[in-house]
């Protein structure tokens, strides 16, 4: 059995752990369990874009064309990243409504994720507008590298520059984790299972890309 297929077992286990094993957070009540979905979704959305950036760097530096479908893999990773970003915004809004009384509060972290979302939408618009252009892969890869340069600002710097409704980050300025060990365990397990889901989805999308390319090559050969 391939490792990514473990997601069929790990994911439901993680859901059960999040509800049945982990306690709810003090003061926040049962709504705090959204944490086990919201944080892993946010993590995967950033991770997926970082992977897309790395693939883009490899694509641009690979002059001898040693690797195949690298730019397409970057696109696939960004696609998954975009879906996870939307889910992060949705779960965050639900949690915000319960905790802060409104779906949207223009909190620095909320604003930065919207910026990230718009920047990625621009990547897909750019890539689809260059369908006929033979330099599409290069231009998209360069844009993707610019995108990953914005991630440290949007994720780590801007949300820390002003007062936020969000609680302290898991690893805070004191370098201490103020979290119940069961909540921390369930959260880490959930992050692991969502990362595995990302890996599984990447595998499926990459296989579809590979099949599509093979079919295209065969048609070209026949013509």
């Amino acid at each position, binding site marked *: 059995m391939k490792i990514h297929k473990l997601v069929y077992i790990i994911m439901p286990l993680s859901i059960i752990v999040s*509800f049945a094993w982990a306690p709810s957070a003090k003061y926040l009540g049962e709504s705090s*369990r959204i944490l086990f979905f919201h944080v892993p979704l946010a993590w995967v959305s950033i991770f997926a874009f970082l992977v897309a950036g790395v693939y883009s760097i490899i694509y641009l530096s690979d002059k001898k064309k040693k690797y195949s479908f690298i730019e397409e893999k970057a696109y696939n990773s960004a696609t998954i990243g975009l879906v996870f970003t939307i889910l992060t915004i949705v779960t965050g809004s639900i949690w915000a409504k319960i905790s802060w009384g409104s779906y949207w509060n223009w909190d620095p972290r909320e604003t930065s994720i919207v910026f990230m979302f718009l920047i990625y939408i621009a990547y897909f618009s750019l890539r689809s507008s260059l369908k006929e252009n033979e330099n599409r892969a290069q231009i998209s890869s360069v844009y993707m590298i610019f995108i990953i340069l914005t991630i440290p600002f949007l994720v780590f710097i801007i949300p820390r520059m002003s007062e936020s409704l969000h609680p302290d980050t898991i690893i805070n300025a004191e370098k201490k984790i103020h979290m119940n060990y069961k909540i921390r365990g369930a959260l880490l397990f959930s992050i692991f299972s969502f990362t595995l889901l990302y890996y599984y989805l990447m595998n*499926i999308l990459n296989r579809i890309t590979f099949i599509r390319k093979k079919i295209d090559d065969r048609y070209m050969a026949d013509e």
Partner: protein
Amino acid sequence: MDANLKFVMYTILIIWIGLSLFLFKIDMRLSKIEKEIDEL
């Protein structure tokens, strides 16, 4: 466990089962196509 909490957990589990069945079906179909392409 609270009844409401149970309801949310089972709802998420059912959504996951539906999604995993969908993904499993795609996975199987892709394996079949890959085999056919290799045999060509």
